[in-house]
């Protein structure tokens, strides 16, 4: 019995001993460390497609409209508007004075009875204007026409003046002024609002056709009382002044004179992205639309259009288009208030604008000179209406028909993905391009830090090849290019500090060295697919 009990106690001890004999030193003071997952993943990142429009939009900095011309060729367009001076600035009725007087012509000394002497005279004045301007009539809207009468007579004088050239716009009557001058009141003033009158300067004092002629009839009666004395040289004088004249319409002939047109600077941002290399445009066009509201033809010359390069070099416009003024039609006097539209195109056949734009100018000074009644223009009765204006719109069209040869384009891209790379230890970036464009490119990437120091460079390498052109204008296939860019751990650590990427693209069109130009049709597409092999290290903390 005791032996059995002892055995059972021994068994219990064995059980307890087995249970407590654990050697858990492996777990001694151990804790779960961070879980680290470090696979190498091959990942299709995605793709992005650029139509040719979008591609040039990226380069454009929004300075130009990217559109399509009639041949479905992508076209960059810049639009500016110019404007002439206003009619009131172009046309001014000068301030001027007219004077006259009529002497008694007889000596009367203390007549026995009251005696009346009547006198009259018609005066003719020339309306002073600038240059060779000749005006037939003016519809005034404002201004002053003031007349001062004065008498030398020791007698009462009743006078009447009729200004035949100023016709009341309401009544159709000429301006007539009557008054009385006396020894005690030898002067008389008449102030008239010029806006009430139409100036008619088409007749001379004899009723013959004329221009710029002001006709005035002046008459007076002298009442010589007994005891009064008048001398033959005594007279009644008048001084007329025309000041601050404002007009609605001026008719006549403005002669030949300049019409000021402001200038505009067309900023060609497109070229700002380019550095070295050449780009030659085959068929650029400057399209002008002139809307002339002045009542006279205008001659336009384009000689002052100039392109200014990056370093200030100037390329002036030249060619047949600059040989003689381009004539703009004008509305006739029957169509006052309307405009005549004249379209004009500067292109490679009448100017050197292909050379001008192939110089990759940063800006083009768009300046035209206008002159009235050009020698090569039509004879036309002139008028100037207060609303007359010359509006000029100009559109610079750059159809992308070009030869590009090692043209270096520069673009900056913000880079804020540095933190996304923390878990990457090695990265192989695969870029697969499928290019329908007749344009290939080598790319260099410079990763810049906040101080614009280069922290890492991906050396220049071909990224997309130009699509081939077998015959005709269009590309005949898709050029597929695959390029791998490998980043080591150290490279990635350097890139983490980058804030932006400077992209340098060296671009060349298909068969560029032959000098051929290619056409960029709007349905071309550049598809870029990105894939990556990434050694990542993802830690649980």
């Amino acid at each position: 019995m005791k032996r059995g009990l002892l055995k059972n106690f021994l068994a219990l001890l064995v059980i307890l001993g087995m249970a407590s004999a654990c050697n858990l030193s492996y777990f001694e003071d151990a804790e779960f460390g961070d879980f680290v997952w470090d696979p190498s993943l091959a990942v299709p990142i995605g793709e992005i497609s650029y139509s040719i429009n979008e591609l040039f939009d990226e380069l454009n900095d929004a300075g130009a409209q990217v559109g399509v011309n009639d041949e479905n060729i992508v076209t960059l367009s810049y639009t500016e508007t110019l404007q002439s001076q206003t009619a009131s600035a172009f046309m001014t009725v000068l301030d001027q004075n007219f004077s006259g007087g009529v002497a008694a012509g007889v000596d009367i000394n203390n007549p026995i009875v009251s005696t009346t002497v009547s006198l009259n005279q018609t005066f003719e004045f020339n309306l002073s204007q600038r240059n060779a301007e000749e005006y037939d009539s003016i519809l005034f809207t404002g201004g002053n026409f003031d007349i001062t009468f004065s008498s030398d007579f020791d007698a009462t004088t009743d006078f009447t003046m009729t200004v035949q050239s100023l016709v009341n716009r309401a009544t159709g009557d000429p301006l007539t002024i009557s008054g009385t001058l006396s020894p005690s009141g030898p002067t008389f003033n008449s102030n008239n609002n010029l806006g009430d009158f139409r100036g008619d300067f088409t007749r001379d004092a004899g009723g013959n056709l004329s221009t710029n002629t002001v006709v005035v009839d002046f008459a007076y009666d002298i009442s010589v009382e007994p005891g009064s004395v008048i001398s033959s040289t005594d007279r009644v004088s008048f001084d007329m002044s025309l000041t601050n004249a404002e007009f609605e319409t001026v008719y006549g002939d403005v002669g030949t004179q300049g019409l000021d047109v402001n200038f505009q600077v067309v900023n060609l941002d497109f070229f700002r992205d380019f550095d070295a290399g050449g780009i030659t445009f085959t068929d650029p066009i400057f399209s002008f639309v002139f809307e002339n509201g002045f009542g006279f033809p205008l001659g336009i010359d384009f000689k002052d259009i100039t392109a200014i390069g990056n370093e200030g070099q100037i390329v002036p416009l030249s060619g047949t288009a600059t040989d003689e003024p381009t004539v703009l039609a004008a509305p006739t006097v029957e169509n006052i208030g309307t405009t005549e539209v004249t379209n004009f195109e500067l292109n490679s056949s009448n100017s050197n604008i292909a050379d001008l734009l192939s110089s990759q100018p940063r800006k083009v000074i768009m300046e035209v000179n206008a002159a009235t009644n050009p020698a090569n223009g039509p004879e036309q009765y002139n008028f100037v209406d207060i609303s007359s204006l010359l509006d000029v719109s100009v559109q610079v069209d750059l159809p992308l028909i070009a030869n590009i040869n090692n043209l270096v384009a520069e673009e900056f891209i913000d880079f804020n993905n540095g933190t996304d790379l923390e878990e990457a230890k090695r990265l192989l970036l695969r870029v697969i391009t499928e290019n329908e464009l007749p344009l290939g490119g080598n790319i260099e990437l410079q990763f810049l830090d906040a101080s614009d120091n280069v922290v890492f460079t991906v050396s220049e390498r071909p990224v997309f090849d130009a699509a081939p052109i077998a015959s005709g204008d269009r590309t005949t296939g898709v050029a597929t290019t695959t390029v791998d860019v490998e980043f080591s751990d150290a490279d990635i650590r350097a890139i983490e500090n980058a804030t932006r990427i400077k992209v340098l693209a060296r671009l060349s069109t298909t068969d560029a060295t032959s000098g051929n130009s290619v056409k960029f049709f709007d349905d071309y597409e550049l598809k870029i697919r990105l894939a990556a092999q990434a050694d990542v290290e993802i830690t649980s903390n």
Partner: protein
Amino acid sequence: MTRKLLIFSFAMALTVSASAQAYFSYYQLRELVPQTQSLQPAFIPNNSFTFAMPGLNLGASLDADFKLQDLLAKETGSIDYTIDFDVLLAAANDVNNLNLDVTSNLFHFGLKTKKGAFSLFGNVRAMVHLQYDREFMDFLANGNANRIGETIDFGGTRLLANSYHEIGLGYTRQFLGERLTLGARVKQVTGLFHASLAEGATGSITTDANDYSWQIMVQNGTANTAGLDLFLNDQDYPDNAIQDYITSNDNSTLAFDFGAKFKLFDWLHLEASVNDIGTITYKEQARNYNTQDATVNFTGVQLRGIENSGDVFRDSLESKFTSDETQRQFTTDLTMRSYLSASLFLGERNRFTVMAFNNHVFDEIDPSYAVAYNHSVKKFTFGLLGSYRGSGNEVNIGANIASDIGPVQLYLALDNALASSRPEQYSKADFRFGINLMFGYKKWANKSDIIDLDEL
């Protein structure tokens, strides 16, 4: 020590998945420990009446095709461990299993009769089986970058996690004198928590050699769960929902254990058993996460104007699949286990046993083997055994012991006794431990073993 045990226990829990759970050593306790009827229903206890101490009989078995230190790897010079897929890949076989079984005996009443025995018992059980092939671990360790232009097939990955409680009645009876003993147990099994991949669930990813685009194939892409929604969306349920669900739900079914023992000779006994025959149909708390069969190509995302690239990438990939969540009932097999053994008796006290075990998970036959020796005297037994789970796994040395102190029986069985020392160096660890109250040995003892005090 407590801290170390906690860490060790946690590590054990993490290693969830295996395909053996043989409890070879526990099996050797046979008639001395009534709960071994769960392995062999034909065992008849040595005593008249058994009452198991509630909650004090429990066991766990964990085996894998890698060592614990492969899962909880330590870098040189580090005291902390981590899960390192590279280490797991280095340890991986072509096919790898990870199995976990946890059993707690809630109660056991045993009553021995003249020709056999009755039992009434209740257990809570949980088991997890994960099977994966080397290709899957290669993907986890190395990703797909070294398999560009190739297809990575995930078809070899299977998962079955099941937990349930069972209440059953067992009956064992001898025939042909005492030469043949047959035992059967019928159990009401109530499914609790479940997670599994559907039968035939498979997938693959092919990485294009040129643009690294993925061709992803999914077939039978359904994951079934039960009971997990109570945890995942606990805000949608009343406070006592989990308790009510565990206590009673609609996931009940019947299951069976069968066993036979034949005394070919007095010195050679043959035994066979098949346990846990049955299925559970999960009707309550069933959730099915379905992805329609599809083969999709993923070439990345549209990069124009992209923001939150990670989200866009994930959404784009997900959008290529048609997925839904349903609540259809589903049926899952219990993890059937079978034992075959032959015991050679050298006298009454010494027994040698050779045996084989298969757990039939994923319908596979991949048996483990053991050779055991036990020395038994009355209410005491002590044994040693060696077990082998096939190539790539170490031979395990186990031990078992059971003894009574008065009416109190203590027992402990380990298939890999050495695992208690440096457990990280082994791929299998298990234990079975319990305390029972045992009554009525004397009635069944040999007359020669009974001392007549009157005669003395």
